[in-house]
């Protein structure tokens, strides 16, 4: 058996250190080792985006990264984006505009959407659809997901203007 490695990660602002086999997939590290169960396993084959997290500023499917690759990385999951009582505008908007039904894809959707809005604060519908193409939803038909992201963008831009 291959040697275990000493791994250091920063997840949602918290330093984590442990020994792991390099082949451990990051989604399992998050869910089973660190009990961070927001990122979901949908397909496990790099297609659905349910496992999306932000790693060093990139949206990444965490089922397609070895924990060894992530050693030293700064990771944000849905848990680091908002929490009950302190929801992120995207979470509020998904709730308000029926951006989810079963909710299985939602953590990945919102984590990806948060990054998209960082890159493009006022996206067009086309930019949203293109920028969210790595996240699959079985329930909503996407219409309300697009609406939710548009609503969150408007809200976030208004809040930014008010703060200036």
């Amino acid at each position, binding site marked *: *058996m*291959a*040697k275990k*490695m000493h791994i250091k990660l920063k997840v949602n602002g918290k330093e984590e250190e442990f020994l792991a*086999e*390099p*082949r451990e*997939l990051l989604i399992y590290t998050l869910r089973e080792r660190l009990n961070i169960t927001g990122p979901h396993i949908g397909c*496990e*084959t*790099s*297609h659905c*985006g349910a496992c*999306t997290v932000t790693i060093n500023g*990139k*949206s*990444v*499917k965490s*089922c*397609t*990264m*070895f924990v*060894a*690759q992530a*050693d030293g990385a700064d990771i944000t999951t849905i848990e680091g984006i908002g929490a009950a009582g302190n929801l992120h505008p995207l979470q509020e908007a998904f709730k308000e505009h029926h951006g989810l039904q079963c909710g299985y894809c939602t953590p990945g959707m919102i984590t*990806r959407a948060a990054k*998209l809005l960082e890159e493009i604060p006022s996206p067009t519908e086309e930019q949203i659809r*293109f*920028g*969210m*193409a*790595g996240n699959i939803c079985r329930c909503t038909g996407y219409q309300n997901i697009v609406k939710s992201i548009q609503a969150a963008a408007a809200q976030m831009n208004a809040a930014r203007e008010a703060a200036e």
Partner: protein
Amino acid sequence: MIPAAFDYHRPKDIAGVLALLAEHGDTARVMAGGHSLIPMMKLRMTDVQHLIDLQDVGGLSGIEIGSTSIRIGALVTQAELIDHARLAIAAPILREAALQIADPQVRYMGTIGGNVANGDPGNDMPGLMQCLNASFTLAGPDGERQVAAREFYEAAYVTARSDDEVLTAVTIPMPAGGHAYEKQKRKIGDYATAAAAVQIVNSGGTCSSAAIAMTNLSDTPVFSEAAGAALVGSSVDNAALNAAVAAMLEDIDPTEDNRGPVAFKKHAAGVILRRAIERAWSRA
């Protein structure tokens, strides 16, 4: 979906990579973005005992736009290709093609070096690189060598790169004229059913040069010299388009799979190439 166990290495320079490749031979594999390799390892279709992660290796990043050529480091990601404003002006076909690869998450991770080194006939960059007459820099135990993209692909997953070499950069002669990368796929994020890369020059209404390459229509990308030659000297009228498509169809060799039977793939290839030529010519 758990891959077999391996030892993990993260060297800091090419010398370190080459030393590991020399030590472990064909039990070692380099990894760039991992978005072709990890899925294969999860399916246990690839046996890797020593995984050499290139992420910290210096000198493999950056896009340099010179006066006659463009040099792209092997670790440049598809997202970086898309976001590079000067590259979008110098060689817009790269951005057009990269935008049609996979999805945003994959494009943050997938690299140009991994895409061209992989040898999967489904990858989009190899055909594009043949169209652009790019060359690949390979570093090995005896130093560096250059291999033309048009000479690099031997069969599915078999390339001119030997096991002890790393691809460090892609060099593209400055493209001239109009361009198009046209791709037919079953759904967004999918590999091509058929794709065509076209770069074409218009000299006063007459085509003076045309380069055409096709993706996922054979076990390697197909540079169709005859298809390009069919356009040269013409005004890219309907007769020339028909001749180019007919010549291309002679050069491809698709097989039946879950993207369709051979006759359908040939049909799709013809439609895609026609569209690509028309669009490239309209921009030339």
